């Protein structure tokens, strides 16, 4: 095992997020290093998805800042985030159900297309060559995720585990530097989970993509992550390698409960 983990690529400092009187996140700080697999875990309602949404620019944090590749932002803008090379998948899937697998993944290339809508519609000028180049990238992703048999199948007809894979494929189509995965294994059976783990590790390994993932399944997290952040009721209660986190008293009580 000779994975090279680089410098800090994403630094989250003192983030707080309030919805009216509800404090979703309180003073959270952690960082993500280049090429690592970083997990955010915590019980239901701990603020995991809120955290991801702050990084992703869906929510604007009430306090704190996020530094990505040396640039510091008090809030992120979704479009800007994507252009900077941060892609994400969604817990409840956000695919175009009536469109084929191929087309869904192709939408992930949207930001990288230069020709305008008019040229694309008529396939004039550079649009045709551009489409071919993008199609090749998409085909490589299809090959990578082993979904060749469903290339032309409408996404809505696929089983859930495969839809999750298409969702991942669309995020990969952006060729991101950082990939945010929101519960990539939720609702999957053991076999599907194993497949997904392998794909996540392969993405990390083959493309050197930094991965930030939220996960419920402790077994999965401990197996594939380099470092883990633990949230509980919007607060950070642990941060470190899987072993450190596993032996952290606070984490144990948050997950297993304590006698008071």
């Amino acid at each position, binding site marked *: *095992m*000779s*994975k090279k983990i680089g410098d800090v690529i994403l630094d989250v400092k003192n983030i707080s997020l309030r919805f009216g009187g509800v404090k979703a996140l309180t003073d959270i700080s952690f960082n993500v290093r280049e090429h690592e697999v970083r997990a955010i875990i915590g019980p239901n309602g701990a603020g995991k998805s809120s955290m991801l949404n702050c990084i992703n620019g869906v929510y604007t944090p009430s306090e704190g800042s996020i530094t990505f590749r040396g640039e510091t932002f008090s809030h992120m803008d979704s479009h800007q985030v994507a252009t900077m090379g941060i892609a994400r998948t969604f817990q409840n899937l956000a695919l175009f159900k009536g469109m084929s697998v191929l087309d869904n993944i192709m939408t992930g290339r949207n930001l990288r297309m230069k020709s305008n809508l008019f040229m694309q519609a008529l396939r004039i000028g550079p649009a045709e060559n551009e489409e071919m180049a993008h*199609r*090749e990238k998409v*085909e*490589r992703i*299809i*090959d*990578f995720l*082993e979904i*060749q*048999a469903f*290339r032309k199948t409408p996404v809505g007809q696929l089983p859930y585990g495969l839809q999750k894979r298409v969702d991942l494929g669309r995020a990969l189509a952006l060729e991101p530097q950082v990939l945010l995965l929101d519960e990539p294994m939720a609702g999957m059976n053991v076999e599907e989970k*194993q497949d997904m783990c*392998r794909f996540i590790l*392969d993405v990390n*390994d*083959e493309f050197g993509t930094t991965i930030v993932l939220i996960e419920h399944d402790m077994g999965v997290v401990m197996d594939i992550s380099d470092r883990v952040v633990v949230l509980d009721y919007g607060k950070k209660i642990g941060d470190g390698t899987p072993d450190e986190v596993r032996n952290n008293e606070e984490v144990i009580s948050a997950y297993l409960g304590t006698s008071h």
Partner: protein
Amino acid sequence: MQTTFPRLLLKHASERPDAPAMREKEYGIWQTTSWADMAKMVAHMACGLHQAGLTRGEHLVVIGSNRPRLYATMLAAQSLGAIPIPLYQDAAGPECVFPLNNAEVRFAVVEDQEQVDKLLEIREQCPQIAHIFFDDPRGLRKYDEPGLASLEELLAAGEVFATQHPDFYLGEVEKAHTDDVGAMFFTSGTTGNPKGVVHTHNSLINRAEAGALFDKLTSHEDVLAYLPPAWIGQNIFSYAQWLYCGYVVNCPESAATVTIDLKEVGPTYYFAPPRVFEGLLTSVMIRMEDAGAIKRGMFHYFMDVARKYGPTKMDGKSIGLVGEFLYALGNFFVYGPLRNNLGMSRVRVAYTAGEAIGPDLFSFYRSIGVNLKQLYGSTETAVFVCLQPDHEARADTVGVPCAGVEIKVADNGEILVKSPGLLKGYYKNDAATAEVLTADGWYHTSDAGFLDAHGHLKIIDRVKDVGRIKGGANDGAMFAPKYVENKLKFFPHIKEVVAYGDQREKVCVMINIDFDAVGNWAERRNLPYAGYTDLAQKPEVYGLIKECVEKVNADLSADELLAGSQVSRFLVLHKELDADDGELTRTNKVRRGYIAEKYEALVSALYNGATEQFIETQVKFEDGRTGSVSATLKLSDAKTFTPVGKAA
């Protein structure tokens, strides 16, 4: 013919360098390798392997699915006088230990990470493995095991060597003789260790030629290579005949895309075991049941027309004006589109073998205009022994002896074969060789059968399996388990059957339902079920299976020889018989003896009249973990019929 496989390759490369040799679908596009490219790749690979230390007469294993570079590896090994051994890509690690050690294999060329992991896992038991080359580098970046390298690196090294020693490759090819050992295949075997079947270049090329002449194959054929290359059938169709005829072999994108790729390629020469034809038919039928009323009505009407006229037309006989008209109409509306959908629009010759094919299934394909035929052969005979000529295909025979083959039937009913394609022997196993190959050149097939009045060979069962009923009403009657099993398996609802009866007073069977077909049947009847085990034990399913069993009994009662083999009792198994659990061979044949031991409780329950029996079984999952499945199975009686002969 005095040639070898590498010489055939060089011949095609010089005569028609730009013609396509192989296609592989990758990244959504069919990528073509021409004969010239293929020859260049083989030469570089051979140089690379030589540099890595592969020597003349040494064995090299190839493990993976159908990939151009893996086929090139076999040619490269043969160019150096080394002997390629293709192994089954879905065999578990421990199953590979025996072949690897038996053949003292130092070199392995494999497809991907899965196969690399498998070999690394058993490396301690096979310490002689020095080199593992892989085709697909995915996921292997971090591996730093000694001797592990990509084919890419091997080819690059080989290219350097080839420029430094331009005459080396051709010199090596020249050294080979047609009677040198060309390849070795391990037979799965129902008992004991697998045996390495040794074939010379000549035996394989000779049979490839016989088959090609029989069906007038040309260099214009298109073949889809989708079965394991370790199986001699695939090897003949996509290697020996490929090199003999010079046609195009197409490699599918992945195992999951075979049906899609089949449609895109539209092969002209097609081979599939009966279960593949059955799977295709089942999927068509299920989809047809879901179609609209008009389409369904048209389909059923024209299928009746096809059943009436199709087979006769296929046999080249006249079907009259009305027949021609209706058939032409049906062809336009139903058969043509259906063939297209099955990927069989261009099929000129299609073969099935390996197992008996159901008469309904067989005539279905022939009736819609697919020239489906049967052949008879085995690993030991390099496939081609008997073939059905066009216009003479029958479901219950396997054809006439092809060029160079002599057949005779021994006193015990065993079929003996003499042919230029016979094995040289079993590797390092003279005792086994002596058992099957007599000094005067006859090969004992261990199949029981006879030549019928038209000179067609008919197979009944394995000689050693043909038994006798002992005691009871049918004392001394002949019992042919496979014959009974096959008759039951011809029903779409039944996937697998194991029959017992030798030295017992009656015949009893254990049945595996076909999950897709029975599941669909249940859904149409609003019959809820929780999974395989639950569905298998439904009383309604027992009723369905009982009907099938009794139909078979009625059929058997009309058979003079086998009326005593009627089935008295049966049960439906709670789990599918699986090769991973050792219940089937890798080619999906039931291992009757092993199953009898494993399910001893069930077999005795069948014979002691119990109505229920509890059973717990270990199962092995694909990733090597084990678990257990338990269930209480019902046992059911079936009606038997008085033999037709006796009743009169």
